[in-house]
């Protein structure tokens, strides 16, 4: 069936034809202008009428009469009124054929085969083809703009495309043809269209997402304009609604009416993914006695979001009978706590508040900080749960308390009496797609407020970054916070169009994490030269450095798995061969400073309380060393020294961290380790490595052999070793390596001397001396530093004290029969 025939099947065709004569935009302008003209004309007419009897305006009167202006004015008013009514009628006509895909599931009539948006696209393409229709229709243009496609690019592309003559309308299994079907059809059949999008980094998922958002935007606007719908009329508060219910003076002091919150009254109808939770609350509050609910969820705003959604449903009268017309009031526990300093006043206030709620009769009491209130009253020696028990067990009150999951398990779950009266309702954390959807409405509001424009990719990035770069808090909260903060920032920096790159730039500024948006020239050079940069500091471990460098380049360019740490390495090898130095060098090169290396000596975590010390104690409430460390610095290198020495529980913890990129501390909060490079070092297998080197083999080639031996010894489980991105073998240092290290160390001393105006001459004999006396097989180059301190630096210090080494002098060390001498010249 060709497009035109397909279009004519539905009664929408007439509306589309009308639109092609007078577009929606034109109609809206027409109604606005005619309204203004009518107002002005009526005012002028009134002026003529009242000035008729006044002597002052005789001149005007004569003028008006001469040209019979009054009659003409009336004619003009009538004419404009006709235009105004016409434009309004046309808009009604258009509105009533609008098919709501997202907001209300329309019951479509038999002759509706396609949605209005589809009609617009096909109508625009009825003389060309569907692709041209998509690019030339207002809906299509809007979608392309949301995808960040520049107007001119779109025009250039579509002008270069050949028109397919007599293209047939695509077919669908659904009863009604939706815009997503058109997009699917175009994306899968028009290769050039797909290429056009892909070359701009746009995937099909993003195309469909942008469509969903655009449809949502159009529908919200359309839906909100239909003020006569019952759900909108229900929002207007009745005149005598409160007359039959009691007053709540005390509760007004300690709380607020949630119906007035801006989240409840926000114009945009949010995609509520909270129907399940609201249903459970409705059930709990509808019970004949003990009609209370306890919302249990992660710390953050998610629980309140459920409450707000519930309030919105009450307002729209879209809720079950026991909640209809109810007034949810939030008791702000902190107000109560700060007002009541002793047991008696707290108890009496609580009893008064609950009595008020009972006598008022139309209140749902929402207690946000239930745990805080509970703990505070316990600390005053008062039995909070017992005080409220008679109320919550009665038939005449509805209470919703909000508690964090960990508190729920710790304090309330096992309290049988409390759980009899409070029905626990678990608040689920939103998944990625749901977070994207709740941002739709908020982003549109922000656009209006700040006069900026978000692309769909930006919206996606909000949700993405929330879980990726921020380890604290619930993702949906974080995503909303980023959105709220980014708009003023964008204005300050002169961005009107906020795309993915701008979002990443903002996050990078906020967190100091180089997000994988644009890789700067400087960083690009660093990444390409990683081997050399690390090699300047780590001597003799070429194979190890290459392996680490490759892994890091993968991470930074975004090829890595985003749900894992940036990198994780197990460094095996004897002591003092450069394992720690590699970690330091990485922190310096990759994260800008050695201070971005965090070190945990795992040999300190061998005892049974190790887990508690690392991730916090449940009993004492003390935060853990490791969880605090990661929270403070979400981005850097974590060095786990002597990894094999820690206990089994800790090893199991790392099994999860390396695999999933996060762990939960004792308070149940997730800590993200996705922006961390983990380096575990161990000198397990060092003996084998030595033996191999002595036998003239390269330990790198015998990696499997070494790992096998470690597993056999039971130091690490094979699954743990497999979790690391790479196991890297460090070989013992050769003499030439040691010499180079000695030289580097001596140069460091020399640099410090230069600051004092002294010159330290570094000769080969000195280097040989340091290597010979400062290093040994078992500890590699590690003792060398100490040796330099004890011999070279001490000698220099003595010279300075004696007053021999003055500014401008040169210090030369001599070695004879392995005895160190020093000269100043």
């Amino acid at each position, binding site marked *: 069936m060709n497009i035109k025939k397909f279009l004519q099947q539905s*009664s929408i065709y007439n509306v589309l034809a009308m639109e092609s004569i007078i577009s929606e935009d034109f109609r809206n302008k027409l109604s606005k202008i005619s309204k203004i003209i009518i107002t002005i004309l009526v005012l002028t007419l009134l002026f003529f009428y009242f000035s008729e009897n006044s002597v002052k305006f005789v001149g005007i009167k004569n003028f008006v009469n001469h040209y019979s202006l009054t009659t003409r004015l009336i004619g003009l008013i009538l004419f404009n009124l006709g235009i105004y009514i016409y434009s309004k009628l046309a808009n009604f006509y258009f509105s009533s054929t609008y098919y709501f895909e997202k907001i209300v599931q329309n019951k479509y009539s038999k002759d509706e085969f396609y949605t209005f948006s589809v009609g617009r696209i096909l109508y625009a393409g009825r003389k060309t083809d569907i692709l041209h229709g998509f690019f030339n229709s207002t809906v299509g243009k809007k979608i392309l703009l949301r995808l960040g496609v520049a107007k001119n690019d779109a025009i250039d592309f579509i002008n270069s495309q050949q028109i397919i003559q007599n293209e047939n309308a695509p077919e669908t299994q659904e009863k009604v043809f939706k815009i997503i079907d058109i997009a699917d059809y175009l994306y899968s059949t028009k290769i050039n269209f797909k290429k056009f999008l892909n070359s701009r980094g746009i995937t099909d998922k993003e195309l469909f997402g942008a469509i969903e958002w655009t449809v949502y935007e159009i529908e919200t606007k359309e839906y909100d304009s239909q003020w006569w719908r019952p759900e909108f009329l229900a929002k207007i508060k*009745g005149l005598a609604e409160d007359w039959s219910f*009691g007053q709540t003076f005390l509760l007004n002091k300690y709380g607020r009416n949630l119906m007035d919150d801006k989240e409840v009254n926000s114009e945009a109808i949010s995609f509520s993914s909270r129907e399940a939770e609201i249903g459970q609350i409705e059930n709990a509050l509808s019970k004949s006695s003990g009609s209370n609910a306890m919302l249990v969820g992660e710390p953050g705003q998610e629980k309140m979001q459920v409450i707000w959604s519930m309030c919105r449903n009450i307002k729209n009268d879209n809720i079950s009978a026991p909640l209809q017309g109810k007034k949810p009031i939030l008791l702000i526990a902190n107000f109560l706590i700060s007002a009541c300093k002793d047991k008696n006043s707290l108890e009496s206030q609580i009893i008064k508040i609950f009595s008020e709620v009972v006598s008022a009769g139309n209140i749902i009491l929402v207690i946000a900080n239930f745990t805080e209130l509970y703990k505070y009253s316990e600390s005053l020696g008062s039995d909070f749960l017992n005080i409220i028990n008679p109320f919550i067990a009665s038939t005449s009150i509805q209470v919703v308390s909000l508690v964090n999951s960990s508190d729920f398990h710790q304090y309330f779950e096992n309290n049988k009496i409390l759980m009899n009266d409070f029905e626990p309702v678990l608040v689920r954390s939103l998944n990625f797609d749901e977070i994207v959807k709740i941002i739709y409405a908020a982003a549109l509001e922000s656009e209006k407020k700040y006069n900026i424009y978000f692309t769909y990719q930006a919206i996606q990035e909000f949700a993405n970054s929330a879980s990726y770069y921020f380890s604290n808090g619930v993702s949906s909260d974080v995503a909303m916070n980023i959105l709220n903060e980014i708009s003023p920032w964008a204005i300050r920096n002169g961005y009107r169009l906020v795309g993915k790159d701008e979002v990443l730039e903002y996050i990078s500024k906020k967190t100091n994490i180089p997000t994988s948006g644009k890789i700067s020239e400087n960083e690009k050079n660093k990444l390409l030269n990683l081997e050399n940069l690390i090699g300047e500091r780590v001597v003799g471990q070429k194979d190890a450095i290459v392996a680490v460098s490759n892994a890091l380049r993968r991470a930074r360019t975004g090829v890595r798995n985003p749900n894992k740490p940036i990198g994780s390495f197990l460094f095996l090898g004897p002591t003092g061969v450069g394992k720690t130095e590699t970690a330091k060098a990485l922190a310096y090169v990759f994260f800008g400073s050695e201070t971005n290396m965090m070190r945990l000596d795992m040999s300190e975590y061998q005892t049974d309380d190790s887990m508690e010390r690392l991730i916090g104690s449940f009993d004492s409430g003390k935060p853990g060393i490791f969880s605090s460390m990661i929270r403070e610095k979400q981005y850097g290198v974590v060095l786990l020294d002597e990894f094999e020495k820690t206990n089994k529980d800790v090893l199991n913890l790392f099994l999860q961290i390396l695999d999933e990129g996060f762990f939960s501390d004792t308070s149940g909060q997730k800590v993200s380790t996705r922006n961390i490079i983990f380096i575990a070092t161990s000198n397990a297998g060092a003996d084998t490595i030595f033996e191999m080197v002595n036998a003239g083999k390269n330990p790198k080639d015998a990696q499997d052999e070494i790992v096998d031996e470690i597993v056999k010894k039971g130091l690490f489980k094979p699954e743990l070793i497999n979790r690391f991105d790479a196991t890297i073998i460090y070989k013992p240092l050769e003499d030439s390596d040691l010499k180079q290290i000695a030289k580097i160390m001596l140069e460091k001393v020399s640099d410090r001397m230069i600051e004092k105006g002294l010159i330290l001459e570094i000769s080969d004999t000195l280097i040989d001396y340091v290597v010979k006396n400062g290093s040994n097989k078992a500890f590699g180059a590690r003792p060398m530093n100490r040796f330099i301190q004890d011999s070279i630096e001490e000698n220099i210090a003595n010279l300075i004290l004696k007053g021999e080494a003055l500014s401008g002098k040169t210090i030369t060390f001599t070695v004879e029969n392995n005895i160190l001498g020093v000269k100043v010249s």
Partner: protein
Amino acid sequence: MKFLKTFLGYLKWHYGKALNTTFVFWKNILIFLFNFFSIKSLAGNFFSPWKRLADSYPKNFNIKAYLFTFLANSISRIVGILMRTIMILVGLCTCAAYILLLPFSLVVWLALPILVIALIVFGLVLIIFS
């Protein structure tokens, strides 16, 4: 031809689907008026005390205190009844006025397409020929 077809399509909508919608619209507004004046809830609680302002009766029988409470509560009830009566009457009058207007607005709706043309034509006539 296209223009005529579009116009006929419009007329079909105006006297068909749209007319149905108009009835729904009227119903919505009437329900809204009922709710706005809280007529149902006021009638349901017609004899309750004003904003639930009522004392509970003393537990030990004390004729003086008992009578005092009874008097206070009665006043609260009388105030309540009075206020509710006024509000219900105002509400019912508004609804009645609204219902009386409906036939008129039906005529207006039916005449609208002709009215639009008439307004434009008549307006032009007045502008040009006066």
